């Protein structure tokens, strides 16, 4: 049995101005990436892009993008990422660059990395805060993203999940 192995590229969209992130959509990223691969690697590149590349997850608030590609060709896609200078969406151009944070074999490993990374970012944000209110906010955010919270949520949601199952 032959498996299709994939690689997940965890990227971050870095913009100089945070507010311009708002219009991010997965189709935008997809199209931009396809154009970049076409420019860099030609027909061969766009054919490969067509096969296995898809944007799996996008978070517009934090600018995190998860791209999936086949294992054979992920380096090709990765190399094309550095050629992206701006994202186009409905005529508006946003200057940005995609920073690849992590390459993983499964979504789960990328998610684990993302958890660690976000925690690090939050800890780094704390000394940079200027006002006290900000500091409070940041601290609350740090405390809120702990595993115990997740477990409580799970316990609360299990009941609702079972109901959901029974209805279908």
């Amino acid at each position, binding site marked *: 049995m032959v498996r299709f192995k994939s690689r997940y590229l965890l990227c971050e969209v870095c913009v100089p101005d*945070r*507010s311009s*992130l*708002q*219009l*991010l*959509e*997965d189709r935008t990223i997809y199209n931009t990436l396809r154009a970049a691969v076409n420019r860099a690697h030609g027909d061969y590149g766009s054919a490969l892009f067509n096969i296995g590349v*898809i944007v*799996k*997850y*996008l*978070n*517009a*608030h*934090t600018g*995190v993008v998860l791209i999936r590609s086949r294992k054979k060709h992920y380096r090709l896609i990765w190399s094309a990422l550095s050629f992206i200078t701006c994202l186009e969406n409905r005529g508006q151009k946003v200057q940005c660059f995609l920073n690849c944070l992590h390459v993983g074999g499964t*979504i*789960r490993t990328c*998610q*684990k990395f*993302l*958890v660690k990374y*976000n*925690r690090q*970012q*939050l800890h780094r*944000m704390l000394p*940079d*805060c200027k006002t006290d*209110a*900000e500091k409070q*906010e*940041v601290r609350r*955010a*740090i405390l*809120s*993203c702990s*595993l115990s*919270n*997740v*477990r409580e*949520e*799970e316990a609360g949601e299990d009941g609702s*999940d079972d109901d959901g*199952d*029974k209805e*279908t």
Partner: protein
Amino acid sequence: MTGAKDRMREKKMKNQPRNVTYTSSGRGTGRGQGSQACGWVRGHQPGGHSYSQDLPKYITASYFAKARAAEVNAMLKAVSKPAGSCHVFNALPNHMRRRAMSHNTKRLPSRLREGAQRLAERSQRAAEKEKKQLPRSRSRRARRRHGNLLLEFNRRQRKNKWLETHIWHAKRFHMQKMWSYCLPLKPTAKSFRASYRAMNTHALLQDLSYFCCLELQGSEEQMLRALARLTSKQTGPTFAAASCLSGARQGSVHLYKADQFPQGCLGPADFLWRPRVPDASDRQLWIWIHPDLKQEVLSELQLVCQCSVSVSVSEESGPAVERSAGRKRKRDEDDAEEPSKRLLGDGTRPAGAPVRWQSPDTTITISDLTMEIVRYRLIGPLAHVVLTDTLQPASEEPSDAVSLHQQQTEVFQLLRGVCSTAELPAGCVLGLTVDDPRLTLPQKRGKSVPDLQQSAEDDRLRDLRLTGVAAHCSQSALWDTSARERVTHSRLSEQELNRMRSELLVPGSRLSADGQAAVPLLLVHQGGRVRGEERLHWGSGWDLLLPKGWGMAFWVPLVYRGVRVGGLHMSVKHSQFMGQPHFPHDYPDCPAGVRFQSEQEAELLEKFKRRPPSKRTNYIKHGCLAPFCCPWQQLTEEWEELVNLSTENVSCCRTGASDFTVLRSLKALRRLSAWTRPPSRRNSSTLTHATAAALQQECGPSLVWVRLRLLGKGQPALHAMVCAPTTSDLQLLLQDAHSSGPQEPRHKDHLKHLRQHKTSPEEPARAVRGVFPAPLPSVLSHCSRLTLGWVTQGDFSLAAGCGEALAFISVSGLLHTILQQPQEQRGLVLLRNPSSLQYRFARISIDV
């Protein structure tokens, strides 16, 4: 319309976070699941859930932090919840997964099997519309499992009685259901030689509580008068033997139907009188019989003592209330009222079955004490050492019996100085009151060794060896029903004992016996081999009689002293090595023996038929008429005919075809035993035709129990034939002492051609190939040598170092043979196994 595949994927992906974007927020609520194809699967509708807020004017650090935190939470949720792949196969650790788990669900542990089977069914029915399956009710086994294990055990005991040590045995032995008991047969480990060594040098333990005890109470003369009808003085000491009557010794006796000696044998029995109590004329007698005999002996006793009125009946056996299996365990108030108790005693007796009978004329009362008394047998020369290690005489005693207790304790201490159990006279009885042996349980199992330092020149020790225990020391409280009940009920449970042990200040020290009830018991010495001249007193031991309920309390301390445990198989071998007939194997004239023989024949025939036809021994070609069952009646009749023909005794005073008996009269046995040995100067009676004929008239058609010892090679098997040697055979032996013996010429299988035809419709039973069909031809003269009898137990004897067999042979045949043998070679016979053509020489001895 969502298909099963999509539903499955949705279930797998339900924990994954969706895209977090700004744009879907506004329109999401209006159009339900938005039209934007964002999400995990292309074509799948649900739009991402996002923050339902407008685009913020300023993005500040706090906002960013919140976003980050939310994302982290979402990721954590996705990571920690292991949804996705089939939980059935993922729940197994790696080393337990097997290649073909998915289509062969039997490779999974039973707890996961149902889920896997459901999955398999579901995948098969993927095309149809699936209905939600109702949760299956648990199997009958699962429903009855955690109820009350004790009730389950009590229920199982209603059909076959369990011994007190049943659970201990069931874990270590192969069990067999016999005579309405569930008895241990053989250990699961290979231990024949180890058990023999234990019997020879150390000690072997057996649980013999399945022997039934009948109690007779009444005045001595009336009891003796009644019981004299059941026994005969010719077979040996009866119930009225002087040493046994005082209560100092246990005796054994053969029981017959009332006034029918020598016909109508019932079987052997052991008996024990209670020592005389001053100022009481009533006496108590215990008769111990095999459970197969019980009904017959009971009816004979009732006939003889004229006890037909049943006095008391057995109550409902204990608070073993049977509850419906479906109740939950939460009913605490019910449980607190009636804790279920273990079933003690006879569980198969229906409530209302009579237990005691009284007679209106004589003052005798018969009670049935089956399973009321626990009986353990220790066999071996160091049995007394094990007993002195395990039992501690009670420290406190009720004041009325202080001196008796002291005397019994002294005798018990004297036992330590004895070197071997065989030194004491056979059958002596010692009563004792001991503490709970669980209090002095050693931490580790060990082997009890004899204490060699005790002085052997003690006068009292010498008296003990010569005369045994005095009669008054054989008294014990075990004889009283009320004392037994009291002791049974006042037993500490294991839980209590463990609690006491945990409360000790110094862990591991001995528990004190203050305030605990002392257990009355009886120690009965069993003589080993008392007849014959070789290996006397082999297999002697002690019997331990206890009140019911105390079985396990004594068993575990005994086992901790390093004894081996044996089952039914070992008791057969014990009798075989002692050269004594074992009930019911070796009693062909008793009804129980006849039953046993027919069962054995059926079993052996089944085993024979199971083999493929070309691999079976062809008994017809070997000339063996009766490989499975011995036709004793036919044998004795034919010998009678032959002898009458040869002596030309026309006026035969034989009374037609009477049933055969087994010769048990001691006088006749002594004479026969003298005649089967080469003559020495000591022998008084000489063998002539006249004396032989006289003996034969006396005995009638009968069999005698003999022991055969092979001179050279050979191992006798079951139902081997004992044949008379011809003069040429004896001469052969004279010339060459190591000759192996004559050979039987092979017979023709005359039934072979009959079987090749089609079986005619008149023949209901098909003849089994290789076995003679039912009406046997002449048993005597079928082979080249005259058949004298058959072997009932034969094996290589570890004690003797050569093949030994125990057989029954016809008395007339034996006399006929001996008369024709030269004097120096008297007592030599030939032995032939059923599956062989070789005769082996053997020497007869009759043990008296």
